[in-house]
């Protein structure tokens, strides 16, 4: 069984989301660093959500098959 890259992206995205939530809600932000903390946690969570979305949409393609781009038509013919 081959490890697919989408799982790696999903794991990395989950780590980003965990980091963002930690900085947002658990980290004791030093005085004057609130703006930096806000942007860092926002970027981590946004990229994490994008990563999870991309990995969910990731579709494994067989390079030997030519994608006609008309899956519905093929399904109908079957």
């Amino acid at each position, binding site marked *: 069984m081959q490890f697919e890259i989408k799982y790696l992206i999903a794991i990395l995205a989950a780590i980003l989301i965990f980091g963002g939530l930690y900085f947002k809600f658990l980290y004791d932000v030093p005085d004057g660093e609130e703006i930096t903390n806000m942007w860092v946690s*926002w970027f981590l969570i946004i990229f994490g*959500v994008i990563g*999870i979305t991309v990995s969910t*949409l990731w579709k494994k393609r067989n390079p030997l098959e030519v994608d006609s781009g008309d899956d519905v038509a093929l399904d109908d013919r079957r």
Partner: protein
Amino acid sequence: MNKLHILIIAAGVCIIVAFSLYTFGSRSTFHKSGTKESPVNSVVQVSSRGPSTTVSTYMNRENPGNFYSIQFPSKAVVEHGNASGSYTARLPQGVFSVQLVDIPDNSDVPLVLLTHIQPALKSTLQGFSRVGYNQFNVGGHRAWDLAYTWKNATARMESIKAIVEGSDNAASITFSGPRQEFGTQNTNFTVIKPVIESFHWIGQ
């Protein structure tokens, strides 16, 4: 692109929009420094030591996890301070300032008071001299106060800085006024103590 893909993309966009609104929407509550603050209510307080006074309650909900309420005499002019979650109240006897103080996780209030706040006061105030240090309780929370004298351009001043422990930040309540006002215990019992004792963390 089938329905499932559209659903996944819509969910991702919804989460991003919701989190962005939560992050940036909460910043819009920040008040500008010097903005006049309005009390949430005013009540008459009957005191055994002196005449009854009217006090106004102010609620600060700017910093999540550090919401608090405090009462000032109704004749005080209360404005928003420089920092988020801070107030300045001007009275004939002197000036109150309330602000949140970050206490690092690996430290505590007395340590910060003696190793950061006191040295900072000593280096910024002319003729700083500590005259008192006490521990007491405010609304079930431990508190420490530091009394000190200093000199401004025209007169000898005295201040009392009380730090009230909280679950995240601590609150610093400072009263500063001319030294002769402190000579009479009246100011201490009718103005300073009631304000400090009225401080209350909301939800802690």
